[in-house]
Each structure stands twice: as C-alpha cells, then as structure tokens.
C-alpha cells in the first residue's frame, strides 16, 4: 500500500468531505455535524466536543482511506469512478447501518424508543439520519462520493 498516498489523499478527501458537510449545514441542507457527534462521545462540553470530534473525524478519514487503498490495490486499479463507487457503498453503510445503531454505541445519545435520560440527551439520527434534516442522506452521499473520487483519482498504486 502506498502509505504516503493514503496519508495525503486521505487527508485531502477528509478536508473536502468536512467542508462539504459544514457547507451544507450552513446552507440549511442538513444539520448533521460529524465532529460534534463524534466529540460528544468523549465530553459534554460543546466546544471541546467539536475540537475532539474534528481530530477523531480526521483519524477516521485516514483509516477509511487505508480501506479504500486496500481495495484499489486488490483490484490493481484506482479510478475516480471506482473510488466514487466505494464512497457510495460507504455512505449507504453509514446511513443505513451505522447511524441507526449509533444510540447503542454513543454514550450520550438517546434512543427513539426510550427518549432522553439524564446521561443520554442527544437526538438519535434515525434511519438514513433523516432526523438531522430531510436532505441529510443526499449531502452524506455526495460528500462520500467526492471523498472516494478524490482517492480514486489521485492514489497511485504501489
């Protein structure tokens, strides 16, 4: 695996994905804030959560870049559309499988069934993260498509 490629393009892809998600939040397309969601796993402090979450989000970006790179290496080819296809699968997995399961993993997230408790007061994302805005699935899919396309375009096979 081309570790420098993973580091560099994983970072660039995560920057683009984060910018797109933040932009969609600013434009009122979705409320989802990944750094806040991840950071509140570690602290209830809103400001600190965003900072920690930002770090975790970038770490995730590199981890997923390694997975993408592993797929490219196994196929012996890396193209924008292959990257985009993995991004699409990645996004669908996040929306359909990971998000609904999040209340079980996140120490501060309430569940749809039980509602808030003294320790769990964050709104659960629901199926396809629709609780975070009706257009959230679209923005998540577009952001991950771009992330994958960047990796597929610029990653050089070893």
């Amino acid at each position: 695996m081309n570790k420098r490629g993973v580091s560099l393009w994983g970072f660039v892809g995560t920057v683009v994905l984060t910018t797109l998600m933040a932009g969609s939040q600013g434009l009122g397309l979705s409320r989802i804030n990944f750094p806040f969601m991840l950071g509140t796993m570690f602290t209830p402090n809103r400001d600190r959560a965003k900072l920690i979450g930002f770090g975790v989000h970038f770490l995730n970006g590199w981890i997923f870049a390694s997975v993408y790179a592993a797929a490219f290496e196994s196929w012996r080819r890396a193209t924008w559309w292959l990257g985009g296809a993995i991004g699409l699968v990645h996004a669908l997995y996040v929306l359909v499988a990971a998000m609904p399961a999040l209340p079980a993993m996140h120490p501060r997230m309430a569940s749809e069934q039980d509602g808030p408790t003294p320790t769990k007061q964050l709104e659960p994302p629901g199926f396809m993260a629709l609780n975070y805005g009706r257009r959230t699935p679209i923005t998540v899919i577009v952001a991950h498509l771009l992330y994958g396309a960047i990796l597929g375009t610029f990653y050089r096979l070893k």
Partner: protein
Amino acid sequence: MLPDRTSESAIYPPIDHYALIGDCRSAGLVSRDGSLDWLCLPRFDSPSIFAAVLDAETGGRYLVRPIGEFRTERRYLANTNVLETVFRTPTGACVLRDLMSVSSEEDKRAYLTPEHEVLRQLEGLEGEVEIEILYDPRPDYGRVRPLLEQRGPLGLRCEVDGTSLTLHSEVPLELTDGDRSASGTARIRSGEEAYLSLTYSMEAPAVVPLLGEAARGRIERTVRWWREWANRCAYEGPYRDAVVRSALALKLMTYAPSGALVAAPTTSLPETIGGVRNWDYRYCWLRDASFTLRALYALGYREEAEAYIGWLLHATRLTWPELQVLYDIFGEAKLPERELPHLEGYAGSRPVRIGNDAQGQLQLDVYGEVINGTTRFLDRGGRFDRDTSRMLDGLGRTVCRRWREPDEGIWEGRSGRFHNTHSKVLCWVALDRLIEMHEAGYLEVSVDLFRKERDEIRKEIEARGYNERIGSYTRTFDGEEMDASLLTLPLYGYIEGTNPRMRSTCARIHEKLARDGLVYRYETGTDDGLPPGEGAFGICSFWAVECVTRGGNVEGATYAFEQLLPYANDVGLFAEEIDPDTGAALGNFPQAFTHIGLINAALTLAGYQEENAVAERPSKDIPTEDLT
C-alpha cells in the same frame, strides 16, 4: 374581583402587557395571558417563529393559560429575567414561569445544553386550574406552516428552513389543524408541576432536554446566572430596583457572541396605533454608543462595555472612514428595508417592515457618539492600538470634511436634509474628544486641523443654532423650533447645564415639548415626511431629567424622575414612547435607549445628590457663606 381577563380577551394586548425573556442571543415577548407572541431564532434579527404580536391570525403563537376567567399578577423573579405569571381563577391559582435557559461557562462544560431553549414551568398554587396549551409555530414571519411530527419521547418536531424546532411537553398534546399546530389541556392541582421545553437547533445531533427535575435544575441555573450578573450592579442609590431592571433589560438585548446591543428586540410595534410609523429596531444604532458605554461602565459591567466597544470598532471598520447609522449584530452594513404585506401589523398598524432604510441616511451625529464612546474606554484604563488610532483619526477627518453638509439628523426624518444643530454639536464633540485624547498622549491625530474645525463648528452653532428671540438653541440652524435632542448638549460637555443659554433652552423645551413630565421629540406640527401622530419619547424625558439636574435644580429633576418611573409596565419595562393621554406604551418594546436614559438619569441624579450632600456638610476648609 375576577375577572380582569378571560381566554376570549382582545386579540392584541396593549404593548405594555408584554414582558421579555431571552438568552442574550434572541428574545421573546410573553403577554399577560401567557402567550409567547414574538420570538425570532436563532438571533434577534432572524425571521420570527411566533409573530402573533404583528398578526394575531397568521403570526403564530405559543400559549399556556387558564381556560375561562382569570386574573393575572406578574413579576420577574428578583434580579433575574425569569418571568413569573400567577393566574388566579375561580377554582384555584397556578404560576407559569417563563424563561430562555442560560448557563455559566462552567455549567456548559459539565452539561449538554440545547442551543436555544424556551422553558415553561406550570406550578399549582391553590385549588385546581384547568389550563389550555396551544402551540402554533409559523416560521418566516408567518409565511410557513410546517408539518409537526409526533416523535413520542423525542417530542413534537418540525423543520424550519433546515433547522429543527422541537417541543417537549409533560402535558399530552394532540396534533390539530392538519398536523400544523398542537393543543392540549391539563388540570394543575396545588403542588403539581408540569414542564414544557421548546428547543431550536441548527446542528445535529440536537440536545433533547429532560423535563421534570432536570428542567427544574435548568431553571435554578438560569436564576443563579441572572442573579450573579445583576448583583454585580454597582449602583446603590435610591432607584436601585429600576436601575437593575433596566440593566437586566439591556443584557437581554445584548447579543453575547459579538457584544452588540440591539435598539429593541421587535419590529413594527407602532408609534401610533393604526399608524405607519412602524420600524424594525432589531439592529444596532451607533447613536446609542456613548450613552450605552457610560451606563455599562458606571454600573460596573466592564466586560459588556468592552465587548460593545469591540463590536463598535469592528463594525465601523467596514464602512470606514464613513460611518453608517446602524449595523446588524455582526456589523453587516446592508440592511435594506422591506415590507411584509401578508401581516396586518399590531392592531392593524401597517406596514410591517423588516430591515431599516435609515441605514442609507446621513446622520453626522454618529461620529461624535462613537468617538465620545471610545473616550469612556480610555477613562477606564483601555488603550488603543495603532490601527484604532488611525481609524479614529480617519473619522475625525471625515467630520472635518462633512460637517458643513445638511443631514437627516438624530430623528431620522424622511423629509430631507437640514443643518441640524444637534448633529453639528456632535461633530464638535467628535473633534473635541479627539483633541483631548491627543493632548493626553493616547492618540496621534491631525490636531491642528481638528482644532481649527472644532472652533469653527462652535462659532457656527453659537451664531446660527441659537435663537435670541425665543431664547433657545434650535432644531435647525436659523430656525424657530426646538427639539428634544438639544437637551443632550450639556450631557456631551458641549455647554454647562448652568449656562444661561442652556438653562433657557431647557426651560423653552419644557414649555413647548413637555406634558406631565413626558417630552415629545419635536413639535407635533414638524414635517418629518410621515403622517403626524406619535407619543412622547421615553429617552427625551430622561434627558430632560439630566438636563434639569445639570442646570442645578436637583430637587425638580428628582421629582420629574420619580414621575417618570411609574410609566414602566408592571415588570419595569419601557417602550420607545409613552402616550401622555393614557400612559400606554407605544413603539418597539422594550427599548434599550429608554432604559439607558433611565440608568444615566439615575446616575446623574446620584452624582449631584452626593455633591449636594457634601456641599451641605460644614467644612473646615471652605467658609460656609461661600456656598450660598
């Protein structure tokens, strides 16, 4: 005794039947009937979520009140902005506590807190009271009727332009009106409590606040936060209650993230019922700068004063070296005025306006206000960096270049530009303060130019702004009329209050513009480009108190001040204007400038009363006969 209200009462309560709650980012008006009739989120100048105050039918409201006949008593919990409304009905009594939750930085680190929360607590006091609840959000000034989604333990949610509005209620609510509103009833018995929490989130995951004990905890934290803030008030004079209430009202109108202070949290509450003088005051007027800073510093709110200075210097850089009349809470200078024809306006007072075209006016007095405000920062030990020094010099040069021009003046008339005496005086103030700061070594400015122009301005004011025949400074150069802005001349140090010219001006203004201690801003026949009809101005009435005090009549001023205080509503809030016939509040509500006037008048009175007390005390050094 009962009733003074019923659930069928008039659809537009008098303006002074409202009280304000807020979280230093936005604020809402709650009527004596327990109806939240105005709320803009996430900030003061955002489109409204509830606007029944501007259109009872289509504006949207959030109502919690008894069914049938009831009587209301109301107050803020002491030294807080937590509103307590007691409803007494033939079957019992209950209290409704309304607040927007706030927390200390320490609490924010320890707990997950919603971005914005309106928290309402019902508590039974006696017997049993049947309560009705109506939740009818109409975002975007009533133009949107969102679908409400019942999500069980996660509350009733709707999406508002990509953001989320969620109501959690311990009282079961049913969706009505095609799922676009919700309502319910509850019986509250003595000792019982019920909580309702309305939260607004721009980001997800949103915090879903707990009700019950946890909500009580948030109320306690909010009460503690306000009390700690109010207890910092340094004023200890005889009007402490009114001064602290005014300070608390100002704090509610401060946008904490930037330090800006809005003129009022409302738009288009009319200056005459049914009239067209309906303006959007949810912006920050530079005119308020110097009086605001005086009030904040003197009351010991240094942090707020410095945040305000920070906003002032930041906002004005965008249009430097020219100054605009108003900016938004982050310093945005373009605030075009628009009408909202779909709203009927308060009691039919059309048009409802958002934005404010005063932004395009030339009002030369703002230069003096800003520069005079910055001297207060220096007086308290602040120092300027080189950029600020250069910026102030630039403002001074603009004054030198433009003071000869006519302008719209302090009252923002729409009948053209004139040589307003008040504007010229503030141009003099601008240059005088810059020269003072230069001489004290705080600034490097074009001092020779400024001295020359300052002296010319004074010469011109004394020659053309004072009318010997009527014995008064005049509203405009070579004019015959007066206006209340002339009362501020001694407040800015342009002239001593005891100067014969000022004393006679003050007397003439009282003769012509005052009624029962209430002062109109100018004579009713004055053409300001709008149909006539408005009340007396709260701020002018408090300026009159200060002017009389500085003229040496402390007793008279004290009496006048005490006559003004009862014009506040039952919870101590003042609107922009007061109807001298009925005492009713008119115009946007509450109005920061009026409360600033109250604080400054109380401070001036306290200063002179103290001086008098010292003067009356026999001294070893000064022969007592010299004091007569």
